[in-house]
């Protein structure tokens, strides 16, 4: 039954796996980064890749709701990066 999928399904699945490998590489940098800015940078890039991965997951599982989740992830990623940087810079949020 699983072999009846169109081949484009496997292409999207492979692209998702490649994005997961990229997330793993960024995770190593986020853990090993010497300065706090390396960690923020790696986390921000991971967020962008997560947005891509979640929208691919919607196509893999045929569920269009996942694109809304990806949009929310994009907004949270940007706001949290800016808030974290403001906190590092000024030692307070506001």
């Amino acid at each position, binding site marked *: 039954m699983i072999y009846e999928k169109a081949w484009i399904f496997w292409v*999207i699945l492979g692209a998702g796996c490649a994005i997961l490998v*990229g997330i793993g590489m*960024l995770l190593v940098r986020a853990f090993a980064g010497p300065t706090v800015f*390396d960690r923020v*940078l790696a986390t921000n890039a991971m967020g*962008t890749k997560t947005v*891509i991965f979640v929208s691919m997951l*919607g196509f893999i599982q045929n569920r269009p709701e996942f694109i809304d989740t990806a949009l929310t992830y994009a907004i949270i990623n*940007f706001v949290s990066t800016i808030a974290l940087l403001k906190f590092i810079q000024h030692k307070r949020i506001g």
Partner: protein
Amino acid sequence: MQWLLLARDILTTSLLTLGCLIALTGAAGVLRFPDFYSRLHAAGKTDSLAQVLIMLGLLLQTHKYPGLELNAGARLVMITLFVVFTSPIATHAITKAAHLHGLKPWTRENDSHA
């Protein structure tokens, strides 16, 4: 009309392959580059381009949602536009915070590895 569907799938495949290649290159650069500012270069440049390419590839596949093609496509375009506008802003904010914090760029003079 059959060749049109095949051309659409092949175009999606090439866009996804190129986007994943660029994303992996950026991740490898962030992992391997010696200095914070060069890592920033690798991440900031590749992020938005890979995102745009992959979203264009997925945009050609919205026929998988019957009845929701325009809906899903509009939301994919919204995500793409949002990330295209906010990713450079986030990169610039990280650079500015690091520069104000006093992080020095890596040069041959202050090389601690050599």
